[in-house]
């Protein structure tokens, strides 16, 4: 008589596993078809808070030091680099700039390698966390310029994920946020409301957020 290994119990386990997987796949399929994600949509509100500008691109964030930016721009403008709406190197975090009467100062983010990755938000004591912690919720709100261009193989805008994460982080610190999508054709720009109606930077929040912050 040929000696055979008894695989009955093993077959039993494997067939049970297959059965469970089939059930799981069917449940998953049914559940996925009915799944809807409800997003909370904050609404723009007028505010007396001042904006702290942040550029979000390539999953990285740059908190603009506006004082430094304007000093550098003024220096370049003084040298004539900014004449005739020419794009000039701002000498600040890989940013190039353009000065226009209507749009104010526009930024062209060409190199983002020196900017902080949004994943640093989860590391306590990271440089990005420190920078965001400097935003005083009683005086400022964060205003994001979010790049909506997609990188190859991605289904999301290059700045969407980093914006969402930073907004969540700031919300935890009671800092309000506002944003607008930007791209190479519609670059981020800072201008004064008194020059153009389009120069308006507003925070967006839910009604409950405003009552919570008031109390």
């Amino acid at each position: 008589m040929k000696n055979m290994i008894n695989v009955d119990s093993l077959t039993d386990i494997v067939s049970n596993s297959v059965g469970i997987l089939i059930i799981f796949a069917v449940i998953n399929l049914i559940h996925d078809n009915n799944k809807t994600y409800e997003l909370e949509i904050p609404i723009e509100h007028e505010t007396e808070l001042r904006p702290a500008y942040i550029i979000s691109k390539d999953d990285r964030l740059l908190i603009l030091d506006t004082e430094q930016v304007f000093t550098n721009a003024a220096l370049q403008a003084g040298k004539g680099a900014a004449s005739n709406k020419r794009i000039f190197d701002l000498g600040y975090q890989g940013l190039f700039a353009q000065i226009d009467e209507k749009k104010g100062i526009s930024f062209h983010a060409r190199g983002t390698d020196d900017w902080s990755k949004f994943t640093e938000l989860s590391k306590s004591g990271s440089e990005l966390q420190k920078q965001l912690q400097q935003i005083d919720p009683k005086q400022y709100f964060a205003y994001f310029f979010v790049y909506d261009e997609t990188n190859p193989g991605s289904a999301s805008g290059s700045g969407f994920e980093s914006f969402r994460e930073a907004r969540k982080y700031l919300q935890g610190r009671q800092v309000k946020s506002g944003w607008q999508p930007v791209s190479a054709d519609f670059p981020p720009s800072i201008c004064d409301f008194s020059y153009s109606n389009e120069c308006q930077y507003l925070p967006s929040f839910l009604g409950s957020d405003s009552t919570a912050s008031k109390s």
Partner: protein
Amino acid sequence: MASRASRYARYLPQEKLEISLFPFLSIFLCVMGVLSFINILSSVSTPQKIELTMELEQGYKVAFQVFTMPDGVISVPPINRLLELQQLVDEESRSTLAMIILRRQRVIDEVTYAQANPALVARSPDVEDISLWLYEIRLINEMALRVNFLYEEFLLFGIYPNGGEAYQKVRSVMTGSPHARNISVGLEPLDANWSLSLHKGSK
């Protein structure tokens, strides 16, 4: 005869048929592997179906949804509560509302029909269309205010990747429009694999 049968019965257990279960086991393992693979793949790549909502402030703010895509914009205006409002306003406003509802219903029907491929109904933002949305929203909000009906429409932008250009165009029309002055705006970034699911109120 009986002795032959009993002899046969005695021999029967010794002739037990041995079947090799290895081929079955192999098939089962293959099926299990494929199913696990499909499961993982589907959980990673299945487009999420989303429904855009907002936290209703005192339950009266209703979204006029505008989705901006690389090909243009899709508008999904609200209708449901307009029917209630229609009962409260005067004769003239009632007929204006009826026209608005009819126009909106046509837009929703178009979007519902092409829901599998919403890009088909996406249109390049047209100044006249945007002005009409703004005019209607303003008109409805004013009517609701006049009859003390707790209802306010606001513009809600869902911005898909590369949809920023269309959004900027709409906002630039809004900046120049007197109708947009008191209209609230909300906006949210959406990923390309988040498919559009119609707003409950529009169904």
